């Protein structure tokens, strides 16, 4: 429809201006895309360069003296490996916990005949209205005894009310007749959820799961607040320590504070390694989640 609109508009006098406008829009968009992409592109190129040949601040269109030495070095760094392992664990276990807990409650809330359904909905929605703040939550996490452990990164982050609402909407769309016939055959609700409803909702579960996984992978604030011992840290904290060294080196002009680990090629190599999982799931996120957000937005 819109196509014919431009075509007919273009035929009118002043049509040429429309084409220049289109070119202008295209140019602005390309420029913006380049600006958003340059930092990451630069990191890839610098990490693939020979550490001896590359220096800070050079514009690299292609790797200088191709070398994977930086990657080899970072993968030999024991602290990096510990942080990487913690992040992988946190992401895998955390996502599994998120999906289990959230889909369980979302299924119950999607059953319209459930006595007290309205109350429970209000109960979870009200929690979004008033944010108790960093400190009271920290004290509770401390009181529940999970501070400074992997559980502190998984349990407090186990639920997002938005996800529950999204999942509930998905489950509500599954025809009730399926549930009824399973009940006739004597299946209980848990059985129905596990063997009928969840398999039918795999695309939505994948969407929510991917999102939870990205959240866990990137999450930094909770690691800074809840975890203090070095051996339990996650990648984001490792990367942030590198940045601090870098900032100090700029600030005090002290090349000694700039240890070998924070040299340009190692820094960019660790950024690239930490981003590979995101890049790997990005096409799926784009396909599922963008659509999910669209549906959510249209629904209001």
């Amino acid at each position, binding site marked *: 429809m819109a196509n014919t609109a431009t075509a007919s508009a273009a035929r009118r006098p002043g049509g040429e201006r429309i084409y220049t406008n289109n070119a202008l829009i295209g140019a602005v968009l390309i420029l913006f895309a380049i600006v958003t992409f340059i930092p990451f592109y630069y990191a890839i190129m610098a990490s693939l360069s020979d550490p001896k040949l590359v220096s*800070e601040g050079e514009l690299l269109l292609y790797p200088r003296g191709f070398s994977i030495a930086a990657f080899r070095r970072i993968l030999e760094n024991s602290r990096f490996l510990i942080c990487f392992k913690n992040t992988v664990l946190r992401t895998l276990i955390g996502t599994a916990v998120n999906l289990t807990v959230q889909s*369980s409650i979302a*299924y119950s809330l999607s059953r319209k005949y*459930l006595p007290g359904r309205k109350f429970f909905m209000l109960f979870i929605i009200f929690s979004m209205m008033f944010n108790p703040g960093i400190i009271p*939550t920290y004290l509770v996490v401390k*009181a529940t005894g999970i501070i400074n452990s992997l559980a502190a990164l998984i349990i407090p982050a186990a639920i997002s009310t938005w996800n529950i609402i999204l999942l509930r909407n998905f489950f509500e769309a599954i025809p009730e007749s399926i549930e009824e016939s399973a009940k006739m055959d004597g299946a209980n609700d848990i059985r129905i959820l596990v063997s009928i409803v969840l398999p039918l909702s795999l695309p939505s579960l994948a969407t929510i799961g991917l999102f939870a996984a990205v959240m866990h992978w*990137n999450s930094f604030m909770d690691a800074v607040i809840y975890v203090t011992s070095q051996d339990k840290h996650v990648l*984001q904290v490792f990367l942030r320590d590198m940045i601090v060294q*870098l900032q100090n080196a700029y600030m005090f002009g002290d090349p000694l504070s700039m240890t070998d680990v924070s040299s340009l090629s190692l820094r960019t190599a660790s950024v690239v390694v930490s*981003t590979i999982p995101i890049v790997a799931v990005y096409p799926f996120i784009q396909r599922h989640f963008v659509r999910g957000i669209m549906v959510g937005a249209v629904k209001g």
Partner: protein
Amino acid sequence: MSDAASNHAAKLQPRSRGRGRKTLKAIWSCRYLYLLMAPALAWYIVYRYVPMLGTQIAFKNYSFSKGILGSPWAGLKHFAFLFSFPDFYNIVRNTILINIYNLLFEFPIPIILALMLNELRSLKFKKTIQTVVYFPHFLSWVIFGGLMIQFLSPNEGFVNKIIEFFGGDAIFFLSRTEYFRGIVVITNIIKETGWGAIIYLAALSGIDPALYEAAIIDGASRTQKLLYVTLPGIMNTIIIMLILRVGYLLDVGFEQIYVLYNAAVYEVGDVLSTFIYRIGIQDMQFSLTTAIGLFQSVIGFLLIWGTNRLARRYSDVSMW
């Protein structure tokens, strides 16, 4: 029919015991559903509602040994201290200023981006641009901020290389108070604009094509279509996003600031969340920082309530 009949039957037996038993039976038949909800409900109680009760330590002198309930009351002491503490005004000012700059510059850009993408005819081009500009949203602030710090670095960063190329002197951007807030806003724009545009693209795709056809028949130009069809079509979404934004006026993301700032720019860059972290978690001033958090939540709630009322009065959109 059968419904009406059973209603009638229920009226014939007015004993409430029968109805109570019926409710119990309905609850019992849903026992597995309650079981499924139990872990999540327990989570809400422990990690949402108990901390809400915990905000009472803003009015107490919290001590670890006595716990939240056992610590002695202190009245409004912490609030009185806050409001007489010059740094507090500075931090509130920083928080609000960064948000206002974001509102002025970062808020409209996703709308413009969505409108521009919407004008594109080539679907392939549109997809490519979208794929690129959504991506930074999925990087953490540590990674994205780290790359930005490198770009802005004094001797070797790109930006300074360009300045020096044109004969200027290199500037250590991240240690200069006059640049810090600008950097926060610009990096935010680069990282989140693409993602922010999605919601407007959704709204744009919801506009009835018949409206455009009618506009064309009436001889509307491209600008007129934009002003009289497209913008009114997404106005509701814009207003709702605006209400949400104003509600977050005292909320600046912790991670971005924490990664970008350093002691040289605390004066202009320290915001409520980073201050709460430094004074609360690191210096263990729990009561004082809880008071700040409570102040933040209450103001946030009032703001969202107030803007919602305004929106309802002057337009037909509101969140509730």
